[in-house]
């Protein structure tokens, strides 16, 4: 008999902090890298990976005690997990819940992958700027040189390595 259906992954609730839910499966560690959390900061953190999800098939969850991501972090998370939801917890209750949203313009967050793009010229007062071409399979286009950034390029750019 398959008992797996009855099995629950036990992760305790957090008192105050953030639960990032509906992260694309396998991307929880990328989320932590984006948040620049290495584990030695002292936050209580729970990471749940590859658990069943009715809407996504499989998903990851990250629970962060006493940690609240800023809007720049959320923009980055939206690029690698467009369905992620943010739950702000106070006294064990969800007081605010919202979905991350990929902006149509992404300014300053990412570097263009074309070495001869003007945004890569050193010392120039210029901010990178990308237009969102596709949400489902992330595709961005540099507003200056027209280069395309795929999902893999974005992950590489955000965490400095391929996944």
């Amino acid at each position, binding site marked *: 008999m398959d008992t797996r259906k009855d099995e629950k992954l036990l992760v305790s609730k957090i008192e105050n902090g953030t639960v990032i839910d509906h992260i694309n499966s396998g991307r929880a560690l990328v989320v932590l890298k984006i948040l620049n959390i290495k584990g030695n900061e002292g936050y209580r953190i729970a990471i749940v990976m590859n658990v069943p999800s009715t809407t996504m098939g499989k998903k990851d969850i990250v629970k962060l005690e006493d940690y609240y991501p800023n809007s720049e972090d959320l923009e980055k998370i939206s690029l690698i997990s467009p369905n992620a939801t943010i739950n702000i917890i106070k006294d064990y209750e969800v007081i605010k819940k919202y979905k991350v949203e990929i902006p149509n313009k992404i300014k300053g967050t990412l570097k263009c992958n074309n070495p001869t793009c*003007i945004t890569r*010229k050193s*010392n120039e007062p210029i901010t990178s700027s990308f237009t969102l071409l596709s949400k489902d399979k992330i595709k961005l286009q540099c507003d*200056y040189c027209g*280069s395309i950034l795929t999902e893999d390029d974005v992950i590489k750019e955000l965490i400095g390595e391929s996944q």
Partner: protein
Amino acid sequence: MINMGWYNKDVVNILDFSREDIELLFSKADEMRAQLKDKSVKKTLSNKIIGIAFFEPSTRTRMSFETAAKRLGADTVGFTGEEGTSVAKGETFADTIKMIDSYVDAIVLRHKFEGAALFASGIAQNPVINGGDGKSHHPTQAMLDLYTTKTLFGEIDGLTFALIGDLKYSRTVSSLIYGLSMFKPKEIILISPQQLKLREEIKLFAVDHGLKIREEENIEAISEADIIYVTRIQKERFPDLQEYEKVKGSYKINKKILETHAKKTAKVLHPLPRVDELSPDVDNTNYQAYFLQASLGVPLRMALLSLVLGGD
């Protein structure tokens, strides 16, 4: 009369203009051509100074802009190459543009970095005209290529274009494809070695804008073309010179190839300079139209400067 589609506008990307704007430019260029022929050009820009800021080498674009400006009575100041400028001392591009902008009425800019003209247009108060930025755009060359086509065939719609050679790094090719998206060409045949195929983002653009494109590797594919547009392999844009060595000399258009495969009425264009991809034995054939193309650069750029600077 001032035309609001052009007056005081930056010319960074040909797509910043409509087909109507481009057709107005062509009729204005026809007027300039007639005036040049009759030696009756009016000095309508005599109170203007145009800055020529060419961070990369150029012969035709720079000289045709300077000639165009001077024919209309404007003066020009500027430089070619970073040597001898404060850029060589480490001045930022942004500062250089800010300074030139405070001296002149318009800046014609060429730079090896893609997006340089767009960046400059955000800094300068006066119009910035893109004379080529890296492999991205060369809008006035595309306007010239379309104008030459119209001069030769009377129309652009319904024609078949074969674009040959370095389709990957050529800014004239990408700008021409952007420009053709405003018209209704029958087909664009892209002929190049595997390593020099058109960049994905331009291909996507062409498909999204309803252009019928076909990729080929054999030169025989020119057989249906009305315009055979040949480009040079641009050594200076290759990140790896070994890659350049692999494709160097990989195609060559000559009289025999044209006589064997091309339509009798086909015309060969080339943005020039040429190296070895277009044989001099084509020069004295009926196919040759690249010298006409180069010469039309002056009236076309006179029309453009006149429209941008309100020279009527």
